[in-house]
């Protein structure tokens, strides 16, 4: 594998969308040792037309998460009368505040994933030719009609998919260069085509600085489009999303989706 210069930056087509989601939780109270956790998830697609972002699809959900199997019938009935959906979390072997909270978090993350899917699906249906950029792995969006127009932007590099010299090439990419496209195969997950792209020079300090991994659903066109997509992403270096600590990999429109959702959710909790 060799480092491939992507050429001059060029903005993504007008009408591209950017999707992201947020989640929040708060412990509302306890029935004995059973925590009653209130969750809130939100997802939105901001569409960019003439450089201006505006929300075109949104999803908001507020709900309760409890290990239902540890509740008495009256307690369960009382919760249902609150007026919010009640989702069941893993009761675990025995009550444990940390484990119970973690189990609730799993439920909330699934709800957020569902919200993002709903928002993204709405955009892809409404904009048959529109590209959609997602913060993170493509995940379930791959299954959506129009999933081939989704571009996943992975900022974290906890899992390495290359070895040896290929890994050296990927992690030492110069600014404005990408790796070749390769297939990401992970057990239990849908295979994806992916490549690394260096947005900002790493300056011999941090190998991951400015390094992004781009995901696409498998398809013959992906390799041919990798150059264009890379140039689009290179154009997203400005404006930068500073002061967000992830500004070297977090493109501004995704940052704006987060800002939008936080503003919409407000002082929830």
């Amino acid at each position, binding site marked *: 594998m060799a480092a491939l210069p992507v050429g001059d*930056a060029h*903005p*993504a087509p007008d009408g591209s969308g950017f999707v992201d989601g947020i989640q929040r939780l708060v412990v509302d109270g306890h029935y004995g040792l059973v925590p009653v956790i209130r969750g809130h998830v939100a997802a939105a697609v901001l569409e*960019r037309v003439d*450089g*201006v*972002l505006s929300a075109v699809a949104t999803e908001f959900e507020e709900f309760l998460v409890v290990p239902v199997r540890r509740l008495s019938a009256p307690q369960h009935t009382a919760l249902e009368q609150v007026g919010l959906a009640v989702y069941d979390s893993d009761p675990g072997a025995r009550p444990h505040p940390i484990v119970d909270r973690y189990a609730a978090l799993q439920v909330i993350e699934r709800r957020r994933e569902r919200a993002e899917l709903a928002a993204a699906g709405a955009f892809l249906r409404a904009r048959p030719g529109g590209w959609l950029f997602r913060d993170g792995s493509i995940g379930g969006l791959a299954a959506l009609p129009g999933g081939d127009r989704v571009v996943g932007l992975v900022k974290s590099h906890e899992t390495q998919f290359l070895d040896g010299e290929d890994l050296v090439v990927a992690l030492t990419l110069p600014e404005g260069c990408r790796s070749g496209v390769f297939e990401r195969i992970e057990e239990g997950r849908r295979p994806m085509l992916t490549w690394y792209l260096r947005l900002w020079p790493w300056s011999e300090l941090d190998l991951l600085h400015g390094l992004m991994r781009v995901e696409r659903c498998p398809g013959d066109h992906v390799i041919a489009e990798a150059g264009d997509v890379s140039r689009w992403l290179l*154009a*997203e*270096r*400005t*404006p*930068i999303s*500073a*002061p967000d600590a992830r*500004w070297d990999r977090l493109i*501004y*429109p995704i940052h*704006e989706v987060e*800002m939008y959702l936080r503003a919409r959710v407000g002082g929830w909790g």
Partner: protein
Amino acid sequence: MTADTAPVIGRVVATEQLPAGPHQFHFWTATHTSIGIGAIVRVDAPDGRVVYAVVIDGRAYSDLVSPLHDVLAAEGDPAVTAPPTRRTEIRLWTGAVLRQIPEEPLQPVPLAEVREATAADVEIALRMDAYVRATPSTAIPVGMYTAAGMRAPIYLDADFLLGPESAHLNINGVSGLATKTSAVTFLLQSVFAHFPASKGRIAAVCFNVKGPDLAFLDQPADLDDDDRAMYAALRVPAEPFGRLRYFAPLKADGVNLNTLRSHEDLAASVEPLIWGLREVLDYSEVLLNRDDIDAKADAFLDFLADRVVGKRFDDDWGGRHLVESFTALERLFRAIFDGLETTGGRDMWRTHHIATIRKVRNRLLNISTRCKGLVTDDEGAHDLPFGAFEDRSVYVVDVAGVDPLGQDLVFTRVVSKLREHLERGDLGVEHVIVFVDELNKYAPGDGPDTYVRRMLLDISERGRYLGLVLFGAQQFRSQVHRRVVGNASTTVYGRMDMDELAMPGYAVLSPATKIKLATLPKGELMVRHPHFTQPIFLKFPRPASLAGRQGIEQFPPVADVPFDDAIARQLSAMDRRIVRARVVDLIAGRREDEVRAALLATRRAKPSDPLAYFRARLGAVIATTRGDAPDGDGLRSLKPVEDPYAP
């Protein structure tokens, strides 16, 4: 949104750092909005409270935390391709509260929707409803509020502009751009059109202190459709002043008028302003400085005024005097000096020392020299029609060509006479607006305490009780005596100088308001009025009267003409049938002072046959039989006594 409210354009926001108070609050709007500095908005709280405010400041910012981030993103090259995404931007405005309904309890502005004010809102916001809808209405249109694409008339309250509640108007701004004269001209037209008849009759005396500023107020100006629409909306006739009298002193030659309104088509409408000893003596203090007027001189001046001027007076040497002119006064002085000399060189006369008498003589007789053209040595004066002022009339006094001392004399005497007549209630009108430009020259904040300044202070502090209202204008308000500007209940600002705006007196204005003032286009003003809790920006139409500069182009002044021609021209202006040759024949060989006196008398009398009257006033020419004729030319005129039409 209801039929009488505008769409929502913003929302009030409040943070710990930027809280909303009862007097000021902040709101945001879309990036593209029709409002700007000076716009009036309303906030509707869910509980029914309505807050009206004027926008006094605006800020825009994005989520860019540090400019350095933008440099980084562009890699140091400002010419780099424009970013694909525009940063989110906010328009954050500051509103200064004009009025809250209900007024009590006074509370912070609610965090609610913001709308543009409608015309009805503007009326309520500025508390104009109290006098616009009163019977009789005391509303005087001053211009149009035009912010946010909406037009609404702005009215001043006559009770607070012209008294008795408060009074006076002060207008300031840089020369040429602030349109001070135009604004006052329009406002006078508006006052004449709207001042309720039940409040009495009103007139204006305007001092033209520079160039041709007020020289053509009776001539129509070219107005465009926008101006005419504003006149119609404000219900002010788009016409020049119909009733206007124009006064100007003569030049030193005593026949040519000292004014730029000397074009042949207009000269006939200019009346000479000529004062003699009687008119000037009471105001000699204006012309004499403190060194001149010591206690002894003051006593002698009083003696002259009380015992001598206008009365038959016997000196101590058998002479009888009727002193009604500077010439007669000089004869009296000569008799006194001769008398004292012939009676053994005494140095006291009627308890006055000869040195004091000489000093007063020198100073008084010097007045007619220093103010030649305005002050005449001879009898006879031509003055403003004190006692016969007419309702809704303008009296322009042109002192632009007079030296500063003469201007001071004119101001002082005219205003003092106005005050005297208003006090007695016999001026002819109950209210007089006095317009004085260059107020920083006549009532400066520093410098000597002059008679003129004391008089202007007196008007500004007590004039409203008499119906005497001062409309003053100047470039720099900070240079005018603070009691004069402080007593003006209504203040108007045109384009301002930034240095002036940096003075402490403007600290109450927001930086954005100052910037707007410093860049204000012609025809726009900022107004403060007792009913308005914040300054308001407005537009006014161009005056329907011809402006000075255009007037000069349309009616170019004529050059001074020789004595004979000037007399002939002025008589011809009274009666077109009079030809120059006849006048020249008539005055041939006459003394100029006699001719001037006859002309002045003819002007005053306004006879049906001016030439006949003029000839009669000149009197017959007879041959001198004595060899000691004073001028040695063998000719001497006789003054008529009884029948002015006698041949």
